[in-house]
């Protein structure tokens, strides 16, 4: 609870700083504030309480995921100073929007009431619409914002409809009530229709097939930092929320529902990976890769009782690798009019450290051991097999090998092609963010228990 307040206050402070002409201080203050908030959040670990009439519930799940979101946001905001250099006058807007986005994320994982959930998801989404279209003069950014907005609000409508149906069936927005209703035999069919519609809405938010079409276009068009936000923070948030929703609403999941999840998972992995093969724009490629990761993540739903740790681990691994990768992408594609893989040619010689970090993060996404991405996949597959879905394990395995191809396409471009231009100077904070992110990624790879045993 305190987390949410702290973040919101921080957002307001940032806006106020603009008024008092303290632009330079914005990012340091925000970072300090976020780190403090992170500390605050972590201290809440182990506490289970609810606030405001059960609107907000704090437990280990909430704390863990909130901490992850805050960490990701710290990285994203650290990158902002350089990224928004040319529009420094609006830095407070960008930072505060990100902070509110974070607030939305936190409320999404700590909701105890569907109203809170709805508010959270809308805060997150609207912030993203703005960020996606924030490069006003860029046609691509416009298009991305429009596409995301249209489809996102459509999905919001669907979710809202679902919420209404659930409310109609249960007579309350409170998650405890809903949980009871989901376990009772007398619940009317609307309830399940409502649940399904919420599910569809969430599947859209995490970009799974067939609700994934927006992702590549929006990722490509949006400013790269926004893409980074979408692909890490937003996706992870949506996934965590989806998982929590299912825990509450699908106490005894039907086989058919599981089957839908399985099919969506397989389809997402396959489509995401296969489509990524032919991409030349790295942001699009990462978008499709994100789709396939979404396919992996929804596997967690098949083992709701045990998979929390695995899901958290997966999201952390994926988020950190994504941050590291996007840091390098932002650095490399700065000042370029596209994000094609050719821009990465010769990076291994131009800037070995950045190349190494991108390599490591791509390897992590590809699921090569010692990087946490491998453990993440392994833990999830383990849970899935525990739940008895051998077919999904095999599909996951096959997809992992397809994925290697496009990740390694970038890697080999960095190391075998000749560079076409002089290396640009890397801003100091980029190094820190990239090294920290990939370092954390490897660290949780070496000590998976640190995250796995939280739940």
């Amino acid at each position, binding site marked *: 609870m305190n987390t949410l307040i702290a973040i919101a206050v921080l957002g307001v402070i940032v806006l106020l700083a603009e008024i008092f002409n303290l632009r330079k201080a914005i990012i340091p203050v925000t970072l300090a504030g976020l780190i403090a908030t992170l500390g605050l959040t972590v201290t809440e670990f182990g506490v289970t309480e609810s606030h405001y009439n059960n609107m907000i519930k704090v437990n280990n799940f909430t704390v863990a995921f909130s901490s992850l979101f805050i960490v990701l946001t710290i990285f994203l905001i650290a990158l902002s100073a350089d990224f928004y250099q040319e529009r420094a006058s609006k830095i407070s807007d960008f930072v505060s929007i990100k902070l509110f986005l974070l607030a939305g994320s936190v409320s999404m994982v700590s909701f105890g009431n569907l109203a809170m959930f709805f508010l959270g998801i809308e805060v997150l989404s609207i912030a993203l619409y703005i960020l996606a279209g924030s490069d006003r003069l860029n046609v691509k950014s416009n298009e991305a914002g429009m596409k995301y907005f249209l489809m996102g609000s459509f999905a919001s409508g669907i979710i809202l409809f679902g919420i209404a149906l659930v409310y109609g069936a249960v007579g309350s927005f409170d998650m405890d009530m809903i949980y009871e209703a989901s376990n009772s035999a007398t619940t009317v069919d609307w309830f399940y229709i409502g649940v399904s519609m919420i599910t569809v809405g969430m599947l859209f938010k995490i970009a799974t097939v067939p609700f994934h079409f927006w992702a590549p276009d929006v990722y490509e068009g949006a400013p790269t930092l926004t893409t980074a936000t979408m692909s890490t923070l937003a996706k992870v948030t949506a996934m965590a929320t989806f998982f929590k929703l299912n825990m509450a609403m699908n106490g005894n999941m039907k086989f058919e529902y599981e089957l839908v999840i399985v099919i969506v998972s397989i389809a997402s992995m396959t489509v995401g990976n296969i489509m990524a093969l032919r991409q030349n724009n790295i942001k699009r490629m990462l978008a499709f890769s994100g789709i396939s990761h979404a396919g992996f993540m929804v596997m967690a739903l098949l083992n709701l009782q045990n998979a929390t*740790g695995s899901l958290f681990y997966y999201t952390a691994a994926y988020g950190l690798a994504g941050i590291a990768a996007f840091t390098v992408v932002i650095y490399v594609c700065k000042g370029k009019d596209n994000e094609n893989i050719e821009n990465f040619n010769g990076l291994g010689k131009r800037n070995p450290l950045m190349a190494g970090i991108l390599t490591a993060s791509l390897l992590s996404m590809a699921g*090569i051991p010692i990087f946490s991405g491998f453990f993440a996949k392994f833990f999830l597959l383990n849970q899935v*097999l525990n739940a008895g879905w051998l077919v999904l394990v095999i599909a996951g395995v096959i997809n992992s090998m397809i994925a290697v191809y496009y990740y390694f396409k970038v890697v*080999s471009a960095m*190391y*075998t092609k000749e560079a076409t231009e002089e290396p640009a100077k890397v801003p100091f904070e980029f190094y820190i963010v990239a090294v920290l992110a990939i370092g954390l990624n490897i660290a949780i790879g070496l000590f998976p228990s640190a995250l*796995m045993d939280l739940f």
Partner: protein
Amino acid sequence: MDVTLLLILLFIGAVATYFSGNAIASKVALFFSVAALGVSLALLNQFSQGTDISFSAQWIKNPNVLFALKADGLSIAMVLLTTALTPLIVLSGFGNNFNNAKNFYALVLFMAFAMIGTFLASDGFVYYIFWELSLIPIYFIALIWGNGDAEARKKAVIKFFIYTFAGSLFMLAAFIYLYQKAGTFKWDVLVGLDLSATEQFWIFLAFFLAYAIKIPLIPFHTWQANVYQKAPTIGTMLLSGIMLKMGLYSVLRWQLPLAPNAAKELQYIIIGLALAGVVYGSIVALKQKDLKKLLAYSSLAHVGLIAAGCYAMNMDGLRGAVLQMIAHGFVIVGLFFAAEVIYRRYETRTISEMGGIRQQTPKFASMFMILVLASVALPGTFNFVGEFTVLYSLSTENMVFAVIGGTTIILGAFYMLRMFQHAMLGETNAKMFADVTVSEGIVFVAIIGFLLFFGLYPKPIIELITPSIQEILVHVK
């Protein structure tokens, strides 16, 4: 002192090499690889005195993963193969001038680190991690420092990577399945599992895919020749000398004890496949124009025979396979190095562009000749001991196997002598061929000395590996 020391040493070595700078990287790498050899010999000494040098600690609680390294005779033999070859491989690079040498040698040491981990791990998950980990360095070594057209190389290397990765993923799936049954990845527990015939069948197949690609057996070998050709010679040595053995070792350590009944059921098919590889590899090798490719196919033939020995699943087969793994490791490293020595002087790997070298450098010619003879398993070389034992074991299974496998001694002589004739003999070549340098000479002499010594006195190695093979056979029977 336990085996972790070895891993730590090599890891530190890799890091130190990376930070040492390009100028002295090769020497630092050599220092650490020799140190690793020393440590492994010390460990061998401790082991033979009966000290327990294994290591085990809880790593991940959920799922239950132990960081367990078990050193039995078989593992130690394979570790020694790795630590003995690594200094030679590093030394063989002294004649090359690599860009970014620090990265290169760091990767080499890292690869040795990963391979040693693979040989030692007695927890399936840890084993898998090391197994995969060893792929990364070789990918970069081949990709960045390889030769030939960059696009073709990229294609070959990525194919290699995805192919082997694909195979191992199925192994991972099998491990996960076993974990669901056993609640642990520990070798002792997994091999004690009571699996139904169907389960064994699928687990066997999953493992088989991983190993058949790694070893490689036909028809899963198509990555091999191209990668061997395109990788820098040091990479090829690592691949052919040690990495192939990972697959063969794993057959013994994991596949057979885990799914013995399935292995028995499929035994004839797989031995057939392996032996087909022997014949096929030899025949394809006959008409290769590229020296490294020829050696690659010869390797295919030899490992086919080793694999056949593994799947013969009796004492002689397993023991012979291990002996032959070690022998082949040394001889193939030597042969690839010979190819490299020629390349350094003539800048060609095409056999028809060589010839007439013998007159110019009788020393090199003699050493090359001995290696060729060892690779065709002339009695007196270590390779003969292995090949004889394997063929004998095959003959006790089925005489036809021994006959088919035995064709290697004919066909092997055919392509190797043919290669030697055209590469080394004939009218004196007009191009100067500088005599072998000291560092080159050391590599050759060490390899040849090893092969000849253990060819006559293989007893220490046989005694080292026998108890652990007996233990494996207990689970297989």
